[in-house]
Every structure is written in structure tokens, then in C-alpha cells.
């Protein structure tokens, strides 16, 4: 999995490319922590994500809880299997998915 950072006007965008599973979840966790130190608003772009497993969901869940009231985590461009997973697990109503 590759994570590319992009600074935009009011937020930091993390472009995730690859698979988000047990093996790569810690990598995203670290990236998110780092991102929220730099910015309050972080957008995770999942356009190029092949799939996400529960380990990935847990990382996003944890980050969401961490920044609650301090900043904002947005999930964007979730599609296909990824969106399906978000929706079937109820994460779509819980996380901010744009």
C-alpha cells in the first residue's frame, strides 16, 4: 500500500493506493496520526483502494474517535467493494463519507 500526502487549502489529503488489511493498517494508522498533527482536517481518498478489511476499518474508527471534537476526518471516493464494506458494516453512517 502506498500513501500519498497532498496539501490542499484547508485540509490534508491522504491518497491511499493498494489494499488496506492487517498488514497495512498500522501504516495508515501512523500516517493518520502524523496528518492530524499537521492539520485538523484530513481527507482519506480511497479512490485507488482495492479493498479494506476489518483491520483497516478499525484504524479509521480509532482515528475518528481520536479527533472527535478537535478535527475532522473525511472519507472520500469510496467505491465498489470498499463502499459496500462501509455500508454493510454501518461505518458509512458513522464515518464522514463524502
Amino acid at each position, binding site marked *: 500500500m502506498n500513501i500519498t500526502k497532498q496539501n490542499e487549502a484547508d485540509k490534508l489529503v491522504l491518497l491511499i493506493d493498494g489494499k488496506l488489511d*492487517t498488514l497495512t493498517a498500522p501504516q495508515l494508522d501512523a500516517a493518520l496520526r502524523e496528518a492530524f498533527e499537521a492539520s485538523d482536517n484530513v481527507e482519506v481518498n480511497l479512490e485507488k483502494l482495492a*479493498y479494506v*478489511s*476489518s483491520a483497516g476499518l478499525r484504524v479509521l474508527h480509532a482515528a475518528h474517535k481520536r479527533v472527535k471534537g478537535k478535527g475532522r476526518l473525511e472519507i472520500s471516493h469510496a467505491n465498489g*467493494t470498499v463502499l459496500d464494506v462501509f455500508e454493510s*458494516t454501518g461505518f458509512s453512517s458513522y464515518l464522514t463519507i463524502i
Partner: protein
Amino acid sequence: MKIKKLSTVFRHKLLKVSAIILLCSILLMFAAVIFVVRLSTTEMLKSQIGELRDGVDYYSEFAFNSPNNYLETKPDVLTQSELDDYFHIFLATNWYYIEQDGSIPFTDDSTMRGKNASADPELAQFADIYSGKVTDFDSPQEIPSADFQSENWKKLVICRYGDNSFVVLKYAPKEYYHMLDAVVARLCNFESVGTNGSNMILRQDGVIISPAAGVRDKLHYASSTVDAEMLRAQSAENNLFLVTLNGTNYYAMYAQADGYYTLTVIPRAEVIGSLNAVMSITAFLVLLLLTVIFIRINSLTKRLIVKNIETVNNGLAEITSGNLDTEINVRDNVEFNQLSDGINATVSSLKGYIQRESERFEQELELARSIQTSAMPNVFPPFPERHDIDIFASMKPAKQVGGDFYDFFFIDDAHLVFLTADVSDKGIPAALFMMKAKTIIKSLAQSGISVENVIVSANKILCEDNNADMFVTLWIGILNTENGELSYINAGHCKPLLRRTDGRFEYLPDRADFVVACEDDVPYHGKRLTLKKGDALFLYTDGVSEAVNKDGRLFGEERLKDALNKEKSATAKNICATVSTELRVYSQDAPQTDDITMLAVVYNGGIIREKIMVDADLSQLAKVYAFIEKQFAECGFDSEALAEIGIIADEICSNIVLYAYPVDKGKLTTEFSFNPATEEASLVFIDNGIPFNPLNTPVPDFENAEARKEGGLGIFLVRKLSDRLEYKYTKTQNILKIIKKRRNAP
């Protein structure tokens, strides 16, 4: 016996008849000529004889009338001596002076002197003349012909002498001839009959009196005497007879003429000769006439009969050869008109009958064909739910129903039986036999026995009551679709072609066993080979390899192989289509002589089994994930499915790695298998860790996602994304099996 042409027979007969007519006419003419010759010669000679006799009679009359004239005056004194002197001049043999009462006072016959005439029979006959009862009489009496022959005859001359007396003169032959010979001698001197014939006068003793010796010598026969007896022996008087004189044949005729024979002869050659020429000319004319008639009749026959019969025969030959549209039109005469009409009507009604029969037969054949066709699997693809096997077959019968057949069917989920076969005949009998063979083979094969047993048993059954002496060649294979193992038997059939995944079609080199349904105890040898994924097998009957083009050349095995390898067709249908196209191009308009049957099987692979075993450690999971992704990708799962598989794998593997081995690290084994038949992939995860049945995990509470335990989430996703989940714990192993079905076509 050799049968001749009508014209020849007719000519021979005609020639025979003509020859007979010619012969008869010549014979008839010959007979007619003989008859005419005889008739005319008779007439000619009769007139000659008549004249001659008249001549003799005339001279005789003249000579013997003279005493009558001389004795008109009678001397007054009658004495013997005076009368002797007086009558001496008549040179008679005897003379008699007879009175009215028949007394003979004077005579030179002393025996009769002074006697009565009645004492002498010769004199007695004139009694009525002496007595004066008969006054009118001939003086010289004719010599009676009967007496003439005897030489005892006398020429009698009776003369009135004075008023009441008569003188009778008797001339014996000697005196008679003495009197007459010299007179008669001249009669024939100057006359000839025809050119070389002549008249003759002979004395009773055969001496020729006339013509005279000198004249006679000039005639071409030189005989001086003719035997009167011989003449008399030849024939009666006035009859024509043939006589040979000095080696020459003469027609001759004789008659008696007052003491002489008159004879007339003419050379036969002279009479016949002139007629011979006439006859030759006539014969030639007859011949000419017959020839003309012969030629005319011959040509008429030829024109009126033979030619017409030939026309009729040619028409009939054409009809016999199958062209029932031929019409015979010989309208020269009523008979041939009737014949033509009769034949045309017969052929026409025959044609109608054949038409009706053939329509009925066509219908029955069509029905038989549809039964036969429906007996063979003919819905393609036959197993749409299976992707491990691609099979296509076609049968194109040469006649309406053929003896070829193919068949394929699954005897269970894994075993496919397929075959092509050829019954050694065509038509309905072959089709019936084919149905029997097909049914027997199918029922035997469905019992699950080996291919050897199927064919050995089928052979035994088919041999029983095989009265038709038919046999079947076949190639049958039983394919285990799970592992590609193919067992097969070739019973006298065409060698199939096998194409390996990366190769070209090549003939299977095995030697064929004996045909089926011929000998009930021949052994059959099953062969084995293993098909790999992508391998293709092409079966056919000899209708393919022995299809002919319009020059009569066979399509042949080499051309078939080239056709199959022309392009690498992936599907069974395309393989068959390629061969069909090549066959059509090759044979063009040449008629199909045999059933064309082909069957192609493409094996898309059996069950794939792969596995990987790693230490149950996070560092090893990447390997496992890569393995799983690779297997699924190779089995044709799409990216969406791969994503779902990725999630499933991650959830389960991470769970095992993190929780299965709380104390000692163990192993994680992942087994993959894919069954193309069902399109189901199974992933089995095995660990020796603590027993854990994920199926017992409760469904997470999504209402309060924030508050719930996260542990159930992974299992939830696994449940959601897999088609089936099975768990079991055996001894020390947690075995979790996940079934994932392939949704997309490969």
C-alpha cells in the same frame, strides 16, 4: 444362341425366301420350257408326219387305182391264159377273177381256182361287193395296221370287171414295196425339219426308203438303217419321243403310212438351244426383279419397322436408365402410334406411382431422421452450467437417415462419456441398429463400469441376434473431468486427433481393436491418457476423411489434420465449424457419399488443488495473500471478487495469527481448490491452535457501531463475502472452509 438384330434376321429371311422363289421360278420355267418344247416339237413333228403320211397315201392311192381304171372294159372271151397275160402287168402277187356268186373261175392262185371266195378270209370280206349289195367301195384297201406289224399283210385292190364280176389283186409286202418304193423314195429328198432335222420313210423291215442314200449322207447322222422295232418300242404312233442316234439326242415321232413308217427327227439341242437363251434372259430378269424387290422390302422394313423399333428401344433404354421424363413419339403408323401411347401412358402412371411412393417414403425417412436426430444430444451447449467441459458434435447424414451416431453424457458429476460410431450400412436398417447400439452402450456406461467392460458387454449383446450382419466401429472415451484422466477404446474406428494446450492436433497413434457386433469373444484394450487444461480431442467418422471432391479424390487424414491446425480454435464448436468449412470448400458440389459425423471436446481443466503452509506469523501473511490472489486470478475471478477474497483472507489469517496460538507459534496452512464444473473455489484454512468456531460468533450490533466490540466485524465480513462457510475441528485442527463461487464467465 446369339441374338441377331431384327434387320439382320429379316434380311436373312428375305434372302432365303428370294432364293427359294428364284429357284422355284427357274425350275418352273425349266419345266415350262420342257413342256413348251415338247408341245411345239410335237406340233411341228406331227404336221411333218401328217404331210409325209399324206404323201405316202397319195402315191399309194395313185399307184393302186390304176388297175381299176385299166379294167373298165372287159374282154368278151375269158380264158385263164389270156387273163394271166392280162393281169401280169399289175405285178400283183395273186389275182382272182370272182363272179357275183363268189365263185372264182380264174386265178393265178391254183389253190383257189374253181373255189368260192368265202374259202379265203381275205377274199371273203368283199362278199357284199360281189353280190352287188354294196356298190360304192374303195378300190385299193388300206393295209390294216395290226396286220402291218405281222408281215403277213396283203395290200388288196378290188376292181369292178364288167357288169357282174370283180378282180381282186393281192400284193404281199414284197410285191407291194416293189410297186411303191421307187415312188415314195423321192418324198423326203428335199425337205428338212428345222435346220438339222429330217423326215424319213422306212419300210416295215427297217430299210430306209427316203431320203435316198446320197441325200441321207449329207445329214449329220449317217445311219443307213433305223431299227423299226426300236422305234415301235420307244413309243406309240404320233407321240414325241427322245432317241439317240449316233450319240446325238433327237426328238422323234413316227407314224404308220400304208405299209411304211414315216419318221421325223429333229436334234434336241436345236429345239432347246433357242429356248435356253430365252430362259437365261428370263432367269436374269427374274433375278433382277427379285433383287429390286429385296432391296425395296429391306429398305421399307428398315424405315417402317426397324428404325421405329430402334427409336422405341432407345427411348425404353433411356427410361430404364432412370429418365422417366422420356417420351416415345413414333407416329408413322397406327401400330407404332398405339405402342408409343401405351409406353408413354405406362411410364407416366409409373412415374406418378413412384412419385407418390417416394413422397410417402420421404415422409417416413424424415420422421426416422427426426427420431434419430432427437436420440442424439443436439442442444448446444449441452452443459451450460459446466465450464470444465466444452463439447460439440454434429452429424450430417448422406441419405435421409444414416448409420453414424455420436453420443455424450455424464454418468455422474465427474465422468463424461463421449463417442462417435459408424454402423456398417446406411438407411433405415442401419439407423435401427444404431439406435440399438447407442441404447445398449449408454445403459452399460451409465452403470459406471470401466470402458473395457462397457464395450465387451455391448459387443456380446450386439452379437446376439445380429441377423443383419452389421457391425459398428466406434471410439468411446470416459473422461474424469476432475483430474482429466481419459480411458478409451478404439473399436476399428478412425483415429481421433488430440491437441495439447500448446501444441497442434496430432493423431492418437494407438492400434485399433476389432469392430463391435461381429465376434462376441474378441478382447478390447482400454487405453489411458490424461488431459490437461486446454487440451482438445477431435473425433470423427470416415465420412469426414473419405469425403470426395468432384474429381473423386479423398479428403484424407493429412488434409483433416491441416484443417484442424489451420487456426487454433478455442471452442469445440469452432473446431467442428472449421472442419465443416474446409470439407465444404473441398467437396464443393460433389455429392456427399457418407454420413459426416464429428465431435470435439475441449477440456477446460479439472479441479485445481494448491496449498501453502507458513508459520503463523504476520510476517508470513503477505506470502499467503499473494498465493491466494494468484490462484483466484488464474481461475478467472474478476477484480471485485479478488477484492472480496482479499478481505476474507485477511480476516481469517489475521485472526489465526493473532489469536490461535497464544503460547507456541504454530503453522497456518491454506489449501486452494477450484472446480470448473461447479465454478466454485474453496479456501481451507487450517491451524493447530485453540479451537475456535467463527460461526458461533454473534452478529455485531450495527445500531451502535461506536460502542460495540470490534471482534465480530471480521467474521461478519467473511460471512457476508463468502458463499458458504464450513467449520470443523478434528483432533487438533481448526478447519475453516470458505466457498467462493465465480460469478463471471472465464
